[in-house]
């Protein structure tokens, strides 16, 4: 995960200003450099499209936004765009009873084990719920 690149001013005192709703605040410069998307980021994008289509209707972009907006300021600023997406997709899959936390954790452990066995570095820390 990338380190925060901007220094935030506390979004307090607004009495209900949500964490993502930062229009007009002074939050430092924006990194405008282009970068290629990683495979997992493209897959995350595809997953969202599939989960919201008419056949599945597991989530809506609005529910996805609501989940992302619920992270809290520190987490919201710390994690990247697609990290926000995949975390919200995971949480909505649990909320909508498509998968359970246990199923997701078990599968993650399995994948992690496979990578470790093959001598590849696996990320130890999980993403908070």
């Amino acid at each position, binding site marked *: 995960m990338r380190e925060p690149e901007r220094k935030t001013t506390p979004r307090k005192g607004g009495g209900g200003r*949500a964490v993502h709703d930062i229009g007009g605040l002074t939050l430092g410069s924006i990194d405008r450099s282009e970068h290629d998307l990683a495979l997992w980021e493209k897959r995350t994008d595809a997953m969202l499209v599939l989960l919201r289509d008419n056949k599945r209707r597991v989530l809506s972009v609005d529910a996805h936004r609501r989940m992302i907006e619920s992270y809290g300021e520190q987490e919201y600023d710390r994690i990247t765009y697609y990290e926000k997406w995949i975390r919200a997709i995971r949480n909505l899959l649990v909320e909508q009873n498509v998968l359970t936390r246990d199923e997701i954790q078990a599968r993650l452990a399995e994948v992690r084990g496979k990578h470790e066995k093959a001598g590849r570095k696996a990320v130890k820390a999980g993403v908070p719920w």
Partner: protein
Amino acid sequence: MKGAGLRVAKPAPAARFAPGDRVRVAARPALGHCRTPWYLRGKMGVVAAVHGRFRDPELLAYHKPGLPARVLYKVRFKQGDLWVRYLGAAGDQLEADIYEHWLEPAK
């Protein structure tokens, strides 16, 4: 706005505001997901266009059908009305899409 069934065809009830009407964005805090930006709350603007009726994103966000549908407007603001020390040209404007339940008539 792409996506299945977001636009609701049924015309009634009629839109509360028409292009040219002066409106004020409600100054209340939001409960949950909301598409009205904070910096516009309590600000005065003018209706520039009526986009149509759409399922309510504040309800869709909780897996509800999003009904009653809400009329969505394009509202035009003067930049000088939005920011304390706006340094741009005096005629600069900003347009934002605002749902009807976030708008009040400006007297």
